[in-house]
């Protein structure tokens, strides 16, 4: 390819060496995205794709973005990532936890490409990791949920029992119980990120067992839809889902990757890119809270906004002690708070969560 280009330029025989170099620099850089779900999931992948569009908008003709959606985690993803790298993509975003090992493996074989892996923890020279502190958003939502529940039962549709999800459940529970000590959180694991039918069924089961607020850590609007049809509250996941539940959606957690993606692509184009780890939260606006439902009383909104502000200015830490584990033993002492390492490996429930945490995932 390159040889051919150069031969063509020589054929023209009028091009000076300097122009050749600048010609190469102004060439379009390819930026690739690997998605775990369909863009049309209206949740996780949908928001990553909005980030991709932000990159296109910010750099115009300078970049060309490509994406592959619904890529299965594991061996299949390695093939997709390798293909992208072999095609000369400068930056490749791999946007699911299960893409971690394939990303690192391919990255070692293509040292010229830069890789960005979402929600993982393995980094090499050309692999950065990034994630959002969704638990901060969930803490804010927990305050609302604790105040809005009448049955004192919050239902939580979980995807997989991994630290990321457990953290969200715990943050919600801590916040809810800080405003209403009687709250219990019931969890139903569906063992998938995306199966509208099953997610909806889990929401129904939770409602049938007394939950009057449905939170979810799965990607489709189905649980919210069930909440709407059963006349209970729900909270949108990854994007504002109020279209599906105009009455039921209290608010939503919004993932906002736009700025991060634009910044990282800019760094790659400038040559300042290096491998690092980013864990952005409410302060960097990587996590945002959708507009609050009008049905939430003003004092509850105030509580939520207080938590929101406190997390941004650092005066509130969601995982500050005292925190008791599910069995009542003190896990975090008064005056202490969990560090990022403990958060990233969280595999225990706080007091107030019902059921046993499935292990081995």
């Amino acid at each position, binding site marked *: 390819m390159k040889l051919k280009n150069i031969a063509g330029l020589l054929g023209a025989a009028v091009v000076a060496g300097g122009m050749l170099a600048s010609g190469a620099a102004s060439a379009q850089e390819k930026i690739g995205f690997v998605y775990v779900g*369909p*863009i*049309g*999931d*209206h949740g996780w992948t949908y928001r990553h794709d909005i980030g991709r569009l932000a990159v296109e908008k910010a750099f115009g003709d300078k970049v060309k973005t490509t994406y592959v959606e*619904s890529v299965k985690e594991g061996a299949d993803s390695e093939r997709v990532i390798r293909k992208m790298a072999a095609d000369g993509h400068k930056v490749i975003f791999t946007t699911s936890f299960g893409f971690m090992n394939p990303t690192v493996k391919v990255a070692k074989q293509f040292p010229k490409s830069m890789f960005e892996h979402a929600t993982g923890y393995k980094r090499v020279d050309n692999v950065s990791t990034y994630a959002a502190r969704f638990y901060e958003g969930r803490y804010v939502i927990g305050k609302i949920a604790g105040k809005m529940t009448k049955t004192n039962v919050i*239902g939580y549709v979980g995807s997989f*029992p991994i630290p990321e999800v457990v953290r969200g459940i715990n943050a919600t529970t801590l916040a809810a119980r800080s405003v209403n000590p009687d709250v219990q959180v*019931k*969890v*139903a*694991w*569906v*063992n*998938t990120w*995306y*199966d*509208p*039918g*099953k997610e*909806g*069924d*889990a929401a*129904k*089961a*939770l*409602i*049938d*067992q007394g*939950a009057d607020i449905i939170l979810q850590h799965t990607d*489709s*609007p*189905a649980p919210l*839809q069930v909440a709407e*049809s059963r006349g209970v509250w729900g909270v949108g996941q990854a994007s504002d889902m109020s*279209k*599906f539940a105009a009455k039921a959606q209290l608010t939503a957690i919004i993932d906002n990757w736009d700025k991060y993606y634009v910044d990282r692509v800019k760094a790659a184009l400038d040559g300042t890119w290096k491998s690092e780890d980013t864990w952005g939260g409410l302060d960097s606006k990587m996590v945002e809270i959708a507009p609050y439902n009008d049905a939430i009383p003003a004092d509850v909104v105030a509580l939520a906004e207080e938590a929101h502000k406190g997390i941004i200015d650092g005066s509130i830490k969601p995982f500050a002690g005292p925190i008791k584990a599910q069995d009542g033993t003190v896990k975090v002492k008064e005056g202490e708070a969990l560090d990022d390492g403990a958060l990233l490996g969280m595999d225990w429930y706080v007091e107030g969560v*019902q*059921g*046993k945490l*499935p*292990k*081995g*995932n």
Partner: protein
Amino acid sequence: MSGFDWLVPVILTVITAATPLVFAAIGELVTEKSGVLNLGVEGMMLVGAVAAFATATVTGSYILAIFAAAAAGAVLALLFGILTLSLMANQVATGLALTLFGVGLSALAGQDFVGEPVKALAKLNIEGLTDIPVIGPILFGQDPLVYLSFVLVALVSWFLYKTKAGLVLRAVGDSHDAAHSIGYSVIGIRYLAVLFGGAMSGIGGAYLSLAYTPMWAENMTAGRGWIALALIVFATWKPGLVLIGAYMFGGITILQLHAQAAGLAIPSQVLSMLPYLATVIVLVLISKDESRIRKHAPACIGKIFHPAA
């Protein structure tokens, strides 16, 4: 949690979980009984789901939407028929391709409908009857497709075992050469069976996008087409058992969610695995008695028919 209070919502949820499986499986059962194996059920369900959703959104008519779903499924099935019956392509490969094609086609066609809500299919509500405790909402409070699914199973059972046409269809599936030699149009009958299977898969898909989770989302079947295919083997090609199997599959899924919400200490992964485990166990049990399968399994399934031979 006293008496039957908790049972009613569980049963209602099981019904919605089972209905799409019933439609897809009973349609495919007829296809397979004619000796054709169409692995494209997942794809046909998806096109049905998107066709139904689009029609309901644009026209507002749910009856039209269900017909559109059946038609869309049948069109995809027709494609399968042309390839495998007329052009004699390999059925397994074509069926797999049909699923992949259906996934892509439905995603493409559904682009404009992503993120659009639609009103759920209305449920029956008969004054007095639906209000009866426990049995009222279960027997008289369903949407029309649920009732249709039961009627369909009864009709297919009657058709296959009590009518001459059904006998001919089974004959074609058991020995296409024999059926051909006494003058039946093997290809023609198989086309009809394939089209019926496609239409029913389409309606199964419509149930997903109109009633189960009233929305369109890419790949929303999430493997239910494959479960439907497994169900047929599970049911040893008997319509009644397909119905029971679908409710069992649906039931196990829902019960495991309830068990979790109730805080029972059973690992959720084990519970998620149960429906498939049940299939394998039943398969092993019935395989021990081969005659029981042979009696109902179409002998010519998946075999290409060469009229000249």
